[in-house]
């Protein structure tokens, strides 16, 4: 029985058993093959003999034995210690968590970026929405695919480091603090999230839109933008990036479900980084386009250090201060709720 094989274990004879054994062996590492080959054949032969001794036809007995052993791939997986799932229970929770988080972060960023790029190139609204939806689908599918692929690879290669179902080293342990607060009113929840996202989307769209369309046109017929076009060299792209970061922050805040001190710090940094430059630009009179103001006859009204410019800057600083104070109050309230529970 063992004579009719070449070194890698591929059978030269072609009985049902030969086919079955080869179907099992071909997905196993070569080093293991010959031993498993001999043992599996002996086991099958023993079983066949037992059934023949019990009065079965040899051919029928062979069939029955192979049927009992079942799907060769499953048996091979058993021999190789391979999981029969793409992503097993040890990784599943991390997989779902990461996938959700990535989709929540990446898709909004892509949406905003696409709107800005398409709007800059002067696309029609229909084109804009259609193109965005198409690319979003593509990005979503790519994201899901690559994340899944990475997890499948971890599942396959990390299978030997499994430690009694406690998860892989480096996998996130469950922390009760991460449970979402249930309607304690510490964050505005979904509505606040949507408001933040829409705002983050509107900022770039509005900036781009005002650049390309205006109620005033210059001598060449080009639109005169409201915002100082020189700011495109740095400040406006900077503000668009911050709007996106603020949107990401809103998503994170929504996911956490309540204000925490690290979130307060991040929020304060974002607020100062956004409103600080705006207030400065307004105060120094650099925010708006002088050509536009000339047309309106408002040049002196909003000039550097003028009462209205100062007042606007002060109001902006006030909004920033309130945003930060508000988050501190909510955090204190949330930690009191946590202590009371």
């Amino acid at each position, binding site marked *: 029985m*063992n004579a009719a094989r070449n070194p890698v274990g591929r059978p030269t004879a072609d009985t049902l058993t030969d086919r079955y054994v080869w179907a099992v062996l071909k997905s196993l590492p070569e080093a293991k093959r010959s*031993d*498993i080959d*001999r*043992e*599996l054949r*002996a*086991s099958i*032969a*023993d*079983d066949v003999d*037992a059934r023949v001794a019990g009065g079965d036809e040899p051919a029928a007995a062979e069939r029955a034995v192979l049927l*009992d*052993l*079942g799907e060769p791939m*499953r*048996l091979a997986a*058993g*021999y190789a*210690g391979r999981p029969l799932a793409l992503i097993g229970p040890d990784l599943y929770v991390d997989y779902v968590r990461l996938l959700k988080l990535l989709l929540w972060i990446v898709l909004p960023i892509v949406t905003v970026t696409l709107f800005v790029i398409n709007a800059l190139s002067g696309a029609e609204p229909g084109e804009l929405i259609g193109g965005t939806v198409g690319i979003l689908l593509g990005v979503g599918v790519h994201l899901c695919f690559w994340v899944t692929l990475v997890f499948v690879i971890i599942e396959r290669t990390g299978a030997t480091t499994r430690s009694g179902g406690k998860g892989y080293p480096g996998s996130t342990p469950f922390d009760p603090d991460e449970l979402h607060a249930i309607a304690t009113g510490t964050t505005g929840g979904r509505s606040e999230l949507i408001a933040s996202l829409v705002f983050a989307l509107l900022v770039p769209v509005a900036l781009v839109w005002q650049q390309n369309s205006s109620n005033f046109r210059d001598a060449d017929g080009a639109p005169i933008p409201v915002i100082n076009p020189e700011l495109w060299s740095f400040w406006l792209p900077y503000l668009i990036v911050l709007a996106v970061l603020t949107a990401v922050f809103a998503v994170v805040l929504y996911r956490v479900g309540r204000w925490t001190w690290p979130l307060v710090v991040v929020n304060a940094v974002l607020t100062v980084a956004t409103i600080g430059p705006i207030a400065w630009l307004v105060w120094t009179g650099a925010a708006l386009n002088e050509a536009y103001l000339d047309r309106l006859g408002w040049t002196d009204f909003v000039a550097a250090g003028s009462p209205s410019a100062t007042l606007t800057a002060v109001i902006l600083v006030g909004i920033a201060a309130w945003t930060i104070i508000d988050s501190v109050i909510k955090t204190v309230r949330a930690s009191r709720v946590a202590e009371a529970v």
Partner: protein
Amino acid sequence: MLACLLMLRTPQYGYALLEQLADAGIPVEGNTLYPLLRRLESQGLLVSEWNTDESRPRKFYRTSPAGDSLATVLLEDWKNLQLSIDRISRKETS
């Protein structure tokens, strides 16, 4: 698995072990047992050798000292579990 470790204190080969287990009231599928034997061997709980004395060469497995001490521990756990279940069922019926 515990049954394997206990039974293989006397050397045995795959198919015969399958029959022995079935006779002992523990029916196991071959496609579960054969990979299990190899895994226990790779974990050092079983040792194996090929017996080529008979016309059909067979791989005989035997419980290693490590497998033996693990079997003792597992057996102890099993007995404790059984005692606990017994106590619970007695409380339920009385």
